[in-house]
């Protein structure tokens, strides 16, 4: 079912993986930095990369390309820390990050991790961050 509603935020964090361009609402993030030391957890799900440290706090690092079914093409190893209610989680984004502004409403498609804004190879795909992170959090728990 498709429901049209206004965009959650005008500013977005944008990046490109191998297949598509993606965008995350900027107001749902609390910061970006390079991935430091990563502690991997044995027998953990593939989408959960492990644990890292951010300003004295431990964060769960989620493999975003794996969740999106895409793959990285750059050597960049950035993580995006999420804001409440997922402040203990960070998304691993192996791509160059950029900023953009959205003026069109974003459609929400149930049970889909993202929705395409536009068409063609340069179409921007808006990530439904709550559902994606919640599912990932359940898997981590």
């Amino acid at each position, binding site marked *: 079912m498709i429901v049209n509603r206004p965009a959650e*935020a005008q*500013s977005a*964090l944008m990046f490109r993986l191998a297949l598509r361009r993606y965008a995350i609402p*900027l*107001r749902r*993030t*609390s*910061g*970006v*930095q*390079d991935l430091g030391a990563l502690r991997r957890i044995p027998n953990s799900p593939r989408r959960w990369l492990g644990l890292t440290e951010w300003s004295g706090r431990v964060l769960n690092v989620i493999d975003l390309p794996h969740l999106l079914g895409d793959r990285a093409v750059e050597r*960049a190893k*950035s993580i995006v820390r999420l804001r409440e209610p997922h402040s203990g989680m960070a998304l691993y984004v192996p791509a*160059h*990050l*950029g*900023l953009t502004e959205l003026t069109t409403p974003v459609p929400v498609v149930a049970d889909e991790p993202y929705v395409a804004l536009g068409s063609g190879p340069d179409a921007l795909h808006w990530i439904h961050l709550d559902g994606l992170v919640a599912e990932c959090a359940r898997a981590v728990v």
Partner: protein
Amino acid sequence: MQTKLGAGFLLVALLYVGVGLAVPRFGFEPIPEIILAVSSYLVIGLSAAWWFSFRITRRMRELAAAAAEIRNGDLTRTVDTSGNDEVADVASAFAVMADSLMHVVHEVQRAAAEIHDSAQSLAQSSDEMDGMASEIAGAAQEIARGAESQANELSRTDKRAHELAGIASDVAAGAHNVNQAAAEAARRAHDGSSDAKRAADGILELTAQNVEASKSMDGFREKASEIGALINSVRSISHQTNLLAINAAIEAARAGEEGRGFAVVAEEVSRLSDTVRGFAERISGISEEITDGSARIGQQFRLSTQAAESVGKRVNRTLESFDGIITETCTTAERAAEIHELTAIQNNAVNDVLESLKQISSIVVANAHGTEETSGTTKNQRESMREMAHSARELAVASDQLRELVSIFRVV
């Protein structure tokens, strides 16, 4: 004989007288007296006639018997030649005749035997001579065929000798050409050796220049690598600047309307960071191309140096080969000169052989003609031998017949 006949007639006459005187003394009647006288006369006359005839014909019969025996071939029969009358003379003449005849027959027999033996020997010799003549004729034919074959062989040999002479001339000409070519090759080998020496010097110089260029290219590549390291620093700075701008934008978004101006600045900084990043990527690409190109050029210089060294070694080997070629071509020229001289000698020898072959050919032809004449003569001789053998056989037959004829005479 006349004396004996006279004595006999005298005795008969005396007997007649005695009978005429005795008969009348018996006193017989006239008639019986006459009859007695006549009878006595008859008896005396007949007896005297028988006795004379007996004495005369007895030896004649003996001669006749002897002649008959001689006629039958018994020449050994002897006759009584005693006496001095005509019969004795006849007997003596008969004995002489028989003896002469026996001698003749004996000689004839001996001569016939000798003739027979000679005829046999002659026939045998004729047969043997005929056989020998046949063998001589066969041999003469073989010689004639051999002479023909020799003539053919000599003709072929002469042809081959001419060909050999032509080949020897060609070889001499070829050897002369080889001599000249070897001299030309030696001269060119000298030129090639000089060029190769110059090429070796040039290659050494090129190798040295390549080594220097390779060193310069290594330095250039190191500088390009330093540029790449600086580009990495610029890329890192751009990345950190971009993260800083994004974090600033996040903080501006959290601040709401108060942070909008700050968000604009953060966005500009992020865009500037992207621009720097783009330039860094372009410079990095160019630096990588320069590094790769300098590496390829350096590698090409090294390969060129290695190739130049390899070429230098080959040129050195070429120089050695040229030295060997010069030596070998000089040797070849000498050998070609020797071959030329030897072929000239060989040509003279072949000409001598040709002359000898010509003489031999004439001799063989003469031998062939002689052999043909010998063959004809032998053929005629064979005919003569056959005729002689035939005559000898006929003579043997005739001698046999003569021996058979005279064999009826027994001489011993």
